[in-house]
């Protein structure tokens, strides 16, 4: 992973983390505020219900009293004093009172508990009122909750009891309003809130009923636990439940108690967390979008920033690569005053110094080479010059001291001078050959054949009896022909074999091997001589460097020059005391420029 990528990821991650943390803080704060508001709204509804309950209770008391004071009820009470009263005229009285007083329940009951007229269940006339036993315990003018049996089930009502007395008889007026969907609908609700009226079963084994503002509601099992808690504690409870869709609901349950504190039902104020979930979801979504946008922006900004930051670094990296590739004069152009700018300046300073040092080194090496050349020339020329000087001085001395013998001395000295001059000429010729290495004349060459010819040429030296050299030849028949200059290749082999023989003055093993490879051939010449030190190995191809006492130091330099002109490679493996192996790799199709001549 590049530095730019890492930097980019770091910036984007920082932005995303900031967005997530911000969203989380916003979510937590909002949720807390909304939950507090939700609780306040539930409490408001409960308070509204209590006020409405009291208000309607007072209204029921007033209307029940009004019915009891009605003249027709007084007439019924008077009729009750007759021996065999006819109740048929009063069959609809309850319904008429209920209609006129806007009541849901009106029942006229005799002193013995038998119903004279019932608005909610007209057919119940003549039957004993099921709650008559409780009538005596009830205080007139006080509203109370009671359960009312109806033809289609059980209802919960807010009742009041009043009396109309005439003579020995009295008519009990039981009037009430129904706590049902209309009552629930009259309560103002906030959005997301619902009201339910839970009615306890009318009889053991009966079914509880649930009413909402639209009427009888289907049973909702998730209220069961809340109802159980209210029933057990007989006081308000607040619970959170999950509905069938998994939505969280906050339920505030208020028990509705009848006579003897018996729980007859419960008011359930339910607030859906849907709004909370919606806002939470909105914030979460907005946070996600903000995070995504932040990340995108972070990536863009990070890309821009890292681009500006890493571009000088990349220049530095590129410059370093160039320096590593040998372009020591590489310069990095960074125009900033920060650390990267300092680094670039240092880099440029470093490469400048490197170039200077290289030039100085080349200069020094050039001077050293000239000195070496001068030393070699001096060394090479000094050896013939000294005998020349001695011979000439000997001739001068012989002419002066022994004129008779001068001719003889002159004759001998001339021969010696000519021999030394030939030697000088030979030395100069070798230097001249190195300086004038000819272009290779490429043609098809059988490398194995050249190797065999060369071995034949050196057969006499190999076979010397004092220090014999054993020859190990492995010429791969699959090598075939290559494109090369046969004379130069022959000269290469000759130089390497001569070097090998020189390295084994006490005899040894000369190895000559050829090997076919996919794109060329390999030629190896090895000896079992004294080997080379590491320094010698590094400088072995340097011109005029030699380890031999009478060598010119140009043999291996010429070999390297020829191989290079053929586009090949030469390498040496050697350890002191373990011999030396020269390995030449020649390509079947040498490069068009023929090598690195002139470089």
């Amino acid at each position, binding site marked *: 992973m590049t530095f730019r990528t890492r930097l980019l990821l770091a910036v984007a991650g920082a932005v995303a983390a900031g967005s997530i943390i911000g969203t989380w803080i916003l979510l937590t704060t909002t949720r807390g505020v909304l939950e507090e508001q939700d609780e306040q709204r539930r409490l408001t509804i409960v308070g509204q219900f209590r006020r409405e309950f009291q208000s309607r209770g007072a209204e029921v008391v007033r209307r029940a009293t009004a019915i009891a004071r009605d003249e027709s009820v007084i007439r019924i009470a008077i009729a009750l004093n007759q021996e065999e009263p*006819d*109740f*048929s*005229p009063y*069959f*609809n009285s309850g319904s008429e009172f209920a209609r006129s007083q806007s009541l849901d329940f009106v029942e006229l009951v005799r002193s013995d508990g038998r119903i004279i007229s019932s608005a909610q*269940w*007209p*057919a*119940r*006339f*003549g*039957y004993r009122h099921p709650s008559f036993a409780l009538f005596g315990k009830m205080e007139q003018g006080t509203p109370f909750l009671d359960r009312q049996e109806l*033809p*289609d089930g059980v209802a919960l009502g807010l009742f009041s009891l009043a009396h109309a007395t005439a003579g020995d008889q009295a008519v009990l007026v039981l009037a009430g309003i129904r706590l049902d969907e209309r009552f629930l609908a009259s309560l103002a609700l906030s959005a997301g809130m619902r009201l339910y009226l839970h009615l306890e079963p009318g009889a053991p084994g009966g079914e509880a009923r649930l009413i909402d503002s639209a009427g009888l509601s289907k049973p909702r099992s998730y209220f069961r636990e809340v109802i159980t808690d209210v029933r057990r504690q007989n006081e308000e409870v607040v619970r959170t439940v999950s509905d069938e869709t998994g939505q969280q609901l906050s339920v505030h349950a208020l028990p509705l108690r009848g006579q003897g504190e018996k729980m007859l039902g419960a008011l359930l104020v339910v607030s859906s967390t849907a709004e909370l979930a919606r806002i939470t979801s909105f914030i979460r979504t907005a946070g996600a979008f903000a995070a995504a946008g932040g990340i995108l922006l972070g990536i863009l900004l990070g890309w821009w920033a890292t681009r500006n930051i890493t571009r000088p670094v990349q220049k530095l990296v590129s410059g370093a690569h160039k320096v590593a590739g040998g372009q020591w004069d590489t310069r990095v152009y960074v125009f900033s005053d920060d650390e990267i700018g300092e680094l670039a300046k240092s880099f440029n300073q470093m490469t400048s110094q490197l170039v200077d040092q290289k030039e100085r080194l080349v200069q020094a090496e050039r001077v050293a080479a000239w000195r070496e050349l001068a030393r070699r020339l001096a060394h090479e020329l000094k050896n013939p010059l000294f005998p020349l000087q001695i011979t000439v001085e000997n001739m001068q001395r012989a002419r002066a001291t022994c004129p008779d013998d001068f001719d003889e001395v002159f004759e001998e000295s001339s021969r010696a001078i000519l021999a030394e001059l030939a030697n000088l000429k030979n030395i100069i010729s070798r230097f001249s050959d190195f300086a004038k290495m000819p272009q290779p004349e490429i043609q098809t060459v059988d490398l194995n054949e050249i190797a065999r010819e060369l071995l034949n040429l050196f057969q006499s030296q190999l076979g010397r009896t004092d220090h014999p050299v054993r020859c190990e030849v492995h010429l791969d028949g699959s090598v075939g022909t290559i494109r090369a200059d046969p004379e130069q290749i022959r000269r290469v082999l000759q130089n390497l074999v001569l070097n090998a023989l020189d390295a084994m003055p006490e005899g040894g093993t000369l190895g000559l091997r050829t090997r076919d490879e996919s794109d060329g051939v390999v030629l190896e010449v090895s000896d079992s001589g004294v080997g080379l030190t590491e320094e010698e190995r590094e400088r072995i191809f340097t011109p005029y460097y030699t380890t031999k006492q009478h060598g010119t130091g140009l043999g291996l330099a010429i070999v390297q020059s020829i191989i290079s002109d053929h586009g090949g490679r030469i390498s040496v493996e050697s350890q002191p005391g373990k011999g030396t192996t020269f390995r030449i790799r020649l390509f079947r199709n040498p490069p068009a420029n023929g090598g690195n001549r002139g470089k």
Partner: protein
Amino acid sequence: MRPPDRTSSLAPRRSGEDDGLSGGRASARRRASAPWIALCGAFLVFLFPIVEASSRPVYGGKLRVQMRSTLGEFNPAVPAVPGDAKSALLPLVFEGLVGTDEGGTVVPKLAVEWRIGQGGQRLSFRLRTNVRFHDGSMMNEASVLESLRTLDARYQMEARNAEVVFTAGDGSAGDLLRQLASPRWAVTRATGPATAAGTGPFSLAGFEPGKRIVLRAFEGYWGGRPFVDELEIRMGRSERDQMIDLQLNRADLIDIPATDARRVGSGIRLPVSEPVDLIAIVFRNRRASDEPLVRAINHSVDRASIHQIIAQRQGSPTGALLPQWLTGYAFLFTGSRDLSLARRLSSSVPRRTGGLTLGYPSSDGFLKSVAERLTLDLREAGLEARTVALPAPPGSTAPDGVLTRIRLTADAAGSLEVISTLLDQPAKLPDRGSALDNPQDLFEGEAGILASWRVVPLLHLPVSFGLSERVGYTRLQDVFRFGQWRFEDIWVQPTPATGGTP
């Protein structure tokens, strides 16, 4: 056992096997009764002064009628329930070859006489002459055949020798005569894609489904035009609205349940019919094993309380199908409560899940109160029951028993036939003629139906009407006695109405 003051009919009695004999007998009977007719005519002339001066027949005016029920259509081809408003109103516009009088006897209408022949397989009718349809065209054999041909494929119809002849493909044509008296077999003439002209005393001048029917007197009626020029019937009016309109002189005749008759103000004329409605629990889907249950129900019902309180002492509690005034033996079928017997019977009945269900027509408040009372009575006998308003929602199971109001006629045997048909209970019913002559057959027929325990009679109730001071009718022909709406026999005084139709 014959109903008191039963109007003699001029209709030919259904005869035995001899071809052409019935018409001859009828003619002989008419000739023999001619002196009696003259005597009766004199009697009528004698009685005429007892008709109040203000009630003397007057032609013209509009009779404004209101009723609780509603009609969605006024097509005679669509079957009507016997006793309902449609079957009462259709004969005012559409007539068949024969009809029934208030006693349920088949009487001539568009046919003046008929003969039964070919071993009872052929029924020949001689048409009345000078009968016009409401569009002015004359009725003849061809128009009768055109109107009736498609009604029942069992009968082959043809015009032969100035008669319309019905021939049954197989079996007897005996049932055809009573079928022809129903409104469905009215003779009509198509006047449009969905309209038809009848031959009745009124022509249809306007119909708003569920709201209003306007009938206009037909000047060319073969029986003489009715008294009123126009008849306006407003439907779906509540009792309260009807009472208000009557008292504000916006209505002349209203439909008041007899059970509310006592509550109506004293200033309203309130003719009450004989108890012609049978209130009963009908168990159409009863299984044989349910007999103890039905018997328990029969003995648990407190009919006296229902009669005294819910029915406001109108009619009478009963254990019989036909009322006492019609048969004279209804008291023999007791309907008294026997709670201990009911409990014993109910204890032998397997308990049902959800209890017994009693259905009632949701439009009938009286039946609803009775059904609710029954649930209380049954509870005392150890039977759990609940009420179900009908028609029940789709998909719900049919109730075990249904509180039903059955309109009876003065034709006792015919009424039994109606009940038997309603129960899907084939019963050995007496012939109408023999029922009059031999009440034993009638009694046995009724007892047979009751013994099936498919029906539990509760009450016989009258029907009542509220009349404004404008309405007149002759007391000799008490048009309201059998609960029928015989508007052709009613007139209105020319007192200007204070309110019109809104």
